[in-house]
């Protein structure tokens, strides 16, 4: 009886695990192997040892893509979280048509990032400059997307537009876990407004804050669709995200081996950041 049970569990686990290894672990290992070669994506290749990795650190294009991706991730994470927290507080207060507002504010999240990117591309290329001319601002009257110094911020806006929806919903479900009597007790102690938020509400929703931080950072570091739709990495490679660069040069540009090395570094960075976030957040939650 007991061994029968064990066999069933194994018969379930082994094939599924094999599938996972085939299409996740093996490609990962192959990616690492390619990173030590000068493979172009086809034909023969030679081993080059660590040369790809050495080159990575002196390649200004790679450095630029990391700089852009991190700048985007940090700014967009902060903006998204601040705005969605304010929005969640509003949506959770005593208002009319609560479920309508919640559903409406969540809408951007279900739309595909690529198409949203195209719509915003038009907005930044035609509508915003026309507005800029009306108010007489020389910076705004040309397209944000063709401005080397500002194009990254256009990407930030689109990323926020979509992710605020998701984060707001998570913050709302966090705010609903805060019991009403906590506020009543706070009222008696004279905690209102910002004080009440800072000392009562926020500490109680820290787990939800953590979830949002992790989700945001992960999404933004891997940004791809928006870049594909809006700038293709331009102008002057100022909005080339890491994923986009790996796709563009590795898949299409023939630098398969070299970009594999880039992808390995990117993988290590993601793992390190995720591990750091988790250890920080678990420490914070313990304190409570």
């Amino acid at each position, binding site marked *: 009886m007991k061994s029968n049970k064990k066999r069933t569990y194994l018969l*379930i686990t082994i094939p599924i695990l094999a599938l996972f290894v085939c299409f996740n672990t093996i490609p990962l290992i192959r990616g690492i192997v390619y990173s030590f070669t000068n493979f172009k994506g086809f034909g023969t290749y030679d081993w080059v040892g660590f040369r790809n990795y050495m080159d990575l650190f002196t390649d200004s294009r790679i450095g630029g893509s990391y700089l852009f991706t991190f700048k985007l991730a940090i700014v967009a994470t902060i903006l998204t979280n601040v705005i969605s927290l304010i929005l969640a507080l*509003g949506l959770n207060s005593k208002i009319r048509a609560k479920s309508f507002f919640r559903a409406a504010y969540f809408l*951007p999240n279900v739309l*595909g990032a*690529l198409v949203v990117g195209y*719509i915003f591309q038009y907005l930044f290329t035609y509508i915003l400059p026309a507005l800029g001319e009306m108010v007489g601002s020389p910076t705004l009257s040309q397209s944000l997307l063709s401005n080397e110094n500002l194009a990254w911020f256009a990407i930030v806006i689109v990323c926020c*537009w979509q992710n605020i929806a998701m984060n707001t919903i998570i913050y709302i479900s966090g705010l609903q876990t805060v019991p009403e009597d906590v506020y009543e007790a706070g009222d008696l102690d004279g905690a209102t407004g910002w004080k009440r938020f800072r000392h009562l509400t926020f500490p109680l929703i820290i787990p939800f804050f953590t979830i949002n931080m992790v989700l945001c950072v992960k999404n933004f570091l891997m940004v791809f669709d928006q870049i594909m739709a809006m700038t293709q990495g331009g102008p002057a490679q100022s909005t080339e995200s890491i994923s986009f660069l*790996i796709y563009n040069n590795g898949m299409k540009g023939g630098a398969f081996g070299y970009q594999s090395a880039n992808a390995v570094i990117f993988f290590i960075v993601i793992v390190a950041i995720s591990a750091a976030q988790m250890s920080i957040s678990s420490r914070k939650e313990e304190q409570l």
Partner: protein
Amino acid sequence: MKARIGQKTNWPVVILLILGLSTIIFPLYMAIVIAFKQPSEMTNSISGILSLPSSWSLSNFAEAMEVTDFWHSLGNSIMITVVTVVLSILIHSLMGYAIGRNRAHSKFYKFVYLFIVSGMFVPFAILMMPLAKQTAELGLANWAGVIILYVVFYMPMNVLLYSGYLVNIPIALEEAAEVDGATTWGTYWKIIFPIMKPMHATVAIITALAVWNDVMTPLIIMAGTGQNTLPLAQLNFQTQFGTNYNLAFASYLLALIPILIFYVICQKQILNGVVNGAVK
């Protein structure tokens, strides 16, 4: 005291929320009016772009459907999404079950759990080039390959959800069934699988949304097969006919309509599913 908090509508907040909604409605409004206009109606001023079209003609939509092979792409997207969701529910729940019931006392299952869940940290960027090669070698550079990859990609997340949910289901249920002579396999499908229904809904929603809107996987695996998913069709359209904005926006709207309909019908389930998935 409670009555006071409960009754009053906070009107300033309502007004701010209505104003805030414009940031969501404006891009969509712009997309709709442009999609209905003819190129001759588009002037360079804002009012020219944003005014209502002179007639609500569907000709742009008809043309966009033809150019992007809409029905074909829609069919592919629906098929890939439905098959992925069904397979995910079947396969991931089984895996979650095997792991959830054995993780506590077996080192092997604990290892399998950590091994699969750590797959969440592998960025697609490192997998895409080897996967493009591997699927081509295996003859899977088509929709079937895309489905297999989705089942693998969403496995870490879904196994985490299922095995977490299983903790709340008392093991006594299965033991009672086994005393009556049912096999583990039979017990699973008759008792455990139906009980996990709320989790199936969550998994279905988050997997479906992710698959439906994904561009990268079909781009890398299906490029060159002549088959498109809806997002991929937009991408190809853009590179070929990017300058006719009226046609382009009609095509964007067509790509958004199916998910919008789905959202309007199931918004409650979607909101719940997404929150469940993220919070667990």
